[in-house]
């Protein structure tokens, strides 16, 4: 269980709050802060067993390899897959790019449509626009309801026998909406469609079980779940990864090489060319260990409480408009205040040491649909407290007074 008291205690694991005493950090959907356990693991590795992995015959290289591989085991267990189904990438964006460049060889025959939703982050849109242009495929978008949930009736209409790929955000980075991903995948499976889940905004906040979801592929970024930047994960079903062609070519992804030709390594190594982000992998492994210790279920529950508290308070501010379904959502609260540009809200909150994000949140088509240029977005994590929200609301009231009096 996490309550306000425990959240305060957990916050002490994060040195950034010791070094920035007044900081109210509400930009967790952008990136999370790092606990000392992750920072120490990185320091410990560089100081005690830094070496390249896989090729070294000596002890510290073997130790480095072990740590790297162990991270895959930790991550695999966390999402209920096996380590050979885990490919390290730079981030969720790179995972989707890898897929958009390599899926062609396994796309079901006679299908030429890609189905996304109107709430996708640009990273789950632009790679598919490019694939559609290269392969002369068609893009379709499942509609977002006026209450900011996904229109499942429309989903059933859009996913057809022509659908080759369904790629959907598990949770929206702008609205916080948690999509009924299992149901979507079930619909897609009936149409023999490849399914991809963008879990960048879900995996830090709710349980993600790839077996239960039955998705073919899933991507996420490490830095949004307490890990370092520059490390991400692509999960793929083993039999599909085996069929995919490599994306990057070079060292370590081969079995044998002649001057003219090369034989690819097995998956996942064939996707990991060149020296990998070893420290990133180790840091991410440690981050997941931390999450497992406090349990994702508890995180989900606490975030729901924070959201309930925040929504109740923000609704009392005159002229506020909330972009949240208030149903099934992660700790993301998008809003606007009448007569105040979101960038001004963010700049003014910064005066009170409150960090939020403002703008289109890399979802420009969604903004256009909502008829706005952007929103202010506060996003919570388990180390946030009721006091953080109180400070945020009090500052918002002051800003509102300044503009609307």
């Amino acid at each position, binding site marked *: 269980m996490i309550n306000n008291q425990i959240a305060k205690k957990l916050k002490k694991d994060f040195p950034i709050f010791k070094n920035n005493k*007044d900081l109210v950090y509400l930009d967790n959907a952008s990136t999370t802060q790092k606990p000392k356990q992750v920072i120490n693991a990185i320091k410990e590795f560089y100081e005690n067993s830094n070496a390249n992995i896989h090729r070294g015959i000596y002890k510290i290289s073997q130790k480095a390899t072990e740590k790297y591989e162990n991270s895959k085991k930790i991550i695999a267990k966390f999402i209920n897959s096996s380590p050979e189904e885990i490919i390290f990438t730079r981030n969720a964006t790179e995972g989707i790019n890898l897929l958009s460049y390599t899926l062609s060889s396994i796309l079901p025959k006679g299908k030429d449509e890609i189905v996304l939703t109107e709430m996708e982050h640009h990273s789950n849109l632009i790679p598919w626009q490019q694939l559609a242009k290269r392969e002369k495929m068609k893009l379709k978008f499942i509609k977002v309801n006026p209450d900011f949930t996904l229109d499942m009736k429309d989903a059933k209409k859009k996913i057809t026998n022509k659908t080759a790929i369904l790629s959907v955000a598990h949770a929206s980075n702008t609205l916080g909406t948690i999509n009924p991903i299992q149901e979507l995948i079930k619909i897609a499976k009936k149409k023999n469609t490849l399914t991809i889940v963008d879990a960048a905004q879900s995996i830090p906040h709710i349980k993600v079980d790839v077996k239960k979801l039955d998705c073919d592929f899933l991507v996420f970024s490490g830095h949004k779940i307490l890990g370092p930047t520059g490390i991400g994960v692509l999960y793929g079903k083993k039999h599909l990864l085996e069929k995919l062609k490599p994306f990057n070519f070079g060292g370590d992804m081969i079995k044998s090489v002649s001057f003219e030709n090369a034989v690819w390594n097995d998956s996942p190594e064939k996707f990991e060319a060149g020296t990998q982000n070893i420290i990133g992998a180790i840091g991410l492994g440690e981050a997941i260990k931390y999450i497992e210790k406090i349990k994702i279920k508890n995180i989900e529950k606490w975030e729901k409480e924070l959201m309930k508290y925040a929504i109740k308070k923000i609704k009392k501010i005159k002229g506020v408009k909330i972009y949240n379904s208030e149903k099934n959502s992660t700790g993301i609260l998008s809003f606007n205040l009448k007569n105040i540009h979101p*960038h*001004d809200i963010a700049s003014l909150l910064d*005066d*009170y040491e409150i960090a939020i994000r403002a703008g289109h949140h890399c979802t420009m088509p969604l903004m256009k649909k909502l008829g*706005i*240029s952007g929103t202010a977005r506060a996003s919570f994590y388990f180390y946030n407290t009721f006091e953080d929200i*109180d400070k945020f609301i009090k500052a918002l009231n002051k800003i509102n007074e300044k503009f609307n009096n």
Partner: protein
Amino acid sequence: MRSLIIKMSHNDLSEKMYREHILELYKNPSNFGEIKNPTHKHTETNSLCGDEITVQMIIKNGKVSDVKFNGSGCVISMVSSSLLTDKIKGMKIEDIKKLTKKDMLKLLNIKINPARLKCALLSLDAVKKTLSPLKQNQGNVTRSKIKGGLN
């Protein structure tokens, strides 16, 4: 009730960005509106922030005899439009063309956070494009977008 002790600390840089007179100017900008028969007109948008400024001018004998702007945007872009249109009224076109980023920031006379620089310079861009030779004596609406800004 939860007890609430809040220490509001202030960041100097941003604090200066929203000084009282700046907010006043935002609420009551100079030269906001439309000119009936402009000789020059241009709309500049920053699609990333959604800011949009339309500048209208009457240019006579190589000088700006009247200028107005309208549109929507953040405090910084609206206030800079207000200050800039005040400054260029009566100015020679050749002199307006020479205005730089430095001049614009001097005119604003507030510290601009690097993340907000694009907002401060949108109006200068709009004004210069209004003057572009292609648009002389046309009075047509021309539009262009600038890249950058916050995302």
